[in-house]
């Protein structure tokens, strides 16, 4: 099972709507979006450490949060599949089936209800009509008859709507559980509803960046670590809860657990705080951890400690990591595969060694040269990109990196480069890798330009043009 996918992210988009005021929004021709994540696809294999690197604001954290649906993605799919015999997964499938049944029952009820209601109304109106005939002209009865007919339509309408909704829900639910090629059941995380999402979140957990701010200062270490168990209503009694918390603390290297359990976050050191954070994720026994810059706030002397702990846990508990960092040197020593993100897109992806030693995308090349090296004699020209973090609300046309790229060509301003495979499993999105396409495009572009020029020359000169010339 070593090389099966545990997570597949396909074409994930997380867009944030931009608001500029009520009237401006009304008048705007097009809704504007901040495209924090714009078409990200990758997969992670079981037991692998996949690393997303990039500048701040490139969307790496948003991708991580989008996978857990802590931020709702706009579109795309997140497919999570664990090993075959998985209790939580089984529970989840059962629960989805249960909702399926209830929805079906509600749907049937709504359908028959509406049928019954309409039949009853028709019968009643016939009855009333007959009475009218017998009684002659009676205003009140006539009004009642009219009202009955009026109400009949909405009732029918409403119940059929409910029926449709039930049908749709059933279809969606069945699509939330899919079977992969190798026969494993998989979850489409984006299609789960809130109650089912808690199941998925037991399998995918997140380690947050700042252990100084992500722990509640009013809670003891025990309460912090036990909280996921309480929220997910997992433990039947206090004893079980305590045992699980102790085990998690032990796994996270806080030994003996009794020593740390009743302390408050301010009573433990920075590295231990991060261990508490990790214990809080381990207590649910997850299989995928999204680690968002887990060591960047820690002191250098303890960074290695946390990395070693994470590696140990991978071997012992068969964990898989999505590691998010801005520090390429950490990514280099820790991860198996790297995806380099720029402005919401992965621009280069491949095995760690290949990316670091043989980077293909100009952005990756620049990033690698600017990493400070602990060697005062190193004489290497740094490629320092101009400008600051790019703006996701205004993504450049063509290749999104072209305004900062040192090798920019004309094609880059107009066309979006495609994924080009350099070696097996190593690809980059850059026109420098496909000179044939650039040549072809350049020729076409020259022809097009020539045509436009000709058009301008042959076009009759309008008075407006004359005015412009005068100016």
């Amino acid at each position, binding site marked *: 099972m070593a090389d099966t996918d545990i997570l597949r992210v396909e074409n994930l988009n997380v867009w944030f709507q931009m608001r500029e005021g009520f009237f401006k929004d009304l008048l705007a021709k097009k809704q504007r979006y901040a495209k924090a994540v714009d078409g990200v696809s990758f997969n992670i294999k079981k037991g692998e450490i996949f690393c997303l690197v990039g*500048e*701040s604001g490139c969307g790496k954290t948003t991708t991580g949060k989008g996978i857990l649906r802590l931020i709702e993605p706009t579109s795309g799919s997140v497919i999570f599949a664990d090993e075959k015999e998985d209790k939580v997964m089984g529970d989840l499938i059962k629960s989805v089936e249960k909702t399926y049944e209830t929805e079906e029952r509600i749907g049937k009820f709504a359908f028959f209800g509406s049928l019954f209601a309409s039949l009853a109304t028709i019968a009643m109106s016939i009855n009333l009509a007959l009475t009218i005939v017998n009684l002659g002209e009676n205003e009140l009865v006539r009004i009642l008859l009219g009202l009955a007919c009026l109400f009949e339509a909405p009732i029918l309408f409403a119940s059929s709507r409910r029926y449709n909704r039930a049908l749709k829900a059933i279809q969606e639910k069945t699509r939330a559980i899919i079977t992969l090629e190798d026969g494993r059941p998989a979850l489409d995380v984006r299609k789960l509803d809130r109650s089912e999402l808690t199941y998925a979140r037991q399998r995918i957990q997140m380690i947050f960046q700042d252990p100084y701010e992500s722990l509640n200062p009013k809670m003891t270490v025990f309460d912090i670590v036990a909280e996921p168990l309480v929220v997910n209503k997992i433990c039947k009694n206090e004893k079980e809860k305590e045992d699980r918390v102790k085990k998690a603390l032990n796994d996270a290297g806080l030994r003996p657990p009794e020593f740390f359990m009743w302390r408050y976050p301010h009573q433990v*050191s920075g590295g231990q705080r991060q261990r508490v954070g990790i214990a809080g994720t381990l207590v649910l026994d997850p299989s995928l951890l999204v680690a968002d810059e887990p060591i960047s706030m820690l*002191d*250098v*002397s*303890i*960074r*290695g*400690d946390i*990395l*070693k702990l994470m*590696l140990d846990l991978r071997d012992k508990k068969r964990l898989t990591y999505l590691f998010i960092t*801005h*520090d*390429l*040197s*950490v990514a*280099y*020593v*820790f991860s198996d595969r790297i995806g380099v993100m720029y402005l919401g897109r992965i621009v280069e992806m491949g095995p*760690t*060694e290949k990316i*670091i030693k043989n980077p293909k995308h100009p952005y990756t090349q*620049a*990033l*690698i040269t*600017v*990493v*400070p*090296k*602990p*060697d*005062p*004699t*190193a004489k*290497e020209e*740094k490629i*320092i*990109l101009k400008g*600051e*973090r790019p703006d996701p609300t205004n993504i450049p046309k063509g290749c999104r990196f072209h305004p900062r790229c040192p090798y920019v060509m004309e094609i880059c301003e107009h066309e979006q480069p495609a994924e080009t495979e350099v070696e097996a499993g190593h690809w980059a999105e850059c026109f420098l890798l496909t000179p044939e396409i650039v040549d072809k495009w350049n020729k076409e572009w020259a022809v097009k330009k020539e045509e436009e020029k000709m058009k301008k020359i042959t076009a009759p000169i309008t008075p407006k043009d004359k005015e412009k010339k005068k100016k």
Partner: protein
Amino acid sequence: MALLEVSNLKTYFTTLEGTVQAVDDVSFELDKGTAMGLAGESGCGKTTAALSIMRLLPSNGYIKQGSITFDGKNIVKMNPVKLRRTRWKEMSIVFQGAMNALNPVKRVGDQIVEPILLHEKVTEATARKRTKELFELVGISPDRIDDYPHEFSGGMRQRVMIAMALACWPKLIIADEPTTALDVMIQAQIIRLLKNLQKELDLALIMISHDLSVLAETCEFLCIMYAGKIVEKGSSVHIFKHPRHPYTRGLVAAFPNIKGEKFMPEPIPGNPPNLIHPPIGCRFSDRCKYKQQICDQKEPPLFEFEPGHYVACHLVQKGVI
């Protein structure tokens, strides 16, 4: 004579639990136009040492002993009026966390004009003109001097802080973790800027950072601090190529090198000692893997291992490691 001479500096803090010996017997000197790095874990006293030089210690901190001679004047004994004239005019500081160090309700230009007007007898127009020059120097468009800090990004704010430190053309600049909160690319920009400015203006620069690799790229000399003491000092080439003190060795090994071999950063086990009751012997002995009996009994003096390279370790002195 050196521009700055710090000798046997002891800076203590009075707290409810007792006296914290934050900086204990630190000596170093700095020549004109050179860059020196102060490195160490958080809480090792590097910022306190810098604040002592500026005499900007918080109210519970005081300089117990030692002298700081800057340009022939003793800073420790200076009276407040004279001190105020020296500070910022002769030496200035780029504070940690540029994001929050600017006043959010004042225009950035005014914040730079203020020290110029206070220190020099110039008109406001001249001061503004100089501010524009400073902006150009640090790579910001001069017509942005009337913007508010929130209109700048993190890297730009750091540049503004550097411009502010340069406002009166000081001889010495202390940069306290100037790149810590910044992104790698911006970090590279700021490092290059600081290096260029240092060369162009012939500045003396003290860089404070926990990131040894940043110091390796900027500084000629390094002081490694641990628990309030300097454990090793010398040229950065010496320290990176042949770190002698076990703590320095640990620190150097804690940094992955993207150009070198792929190895896991080696952690240094344990925690720094409590500085209210520091150990009698070597302060690093609890975390040291080479520890011997003598380390717990006697404090190691700083001895010259090779010309210009000082180490405070009994075992290095004896030639054991």
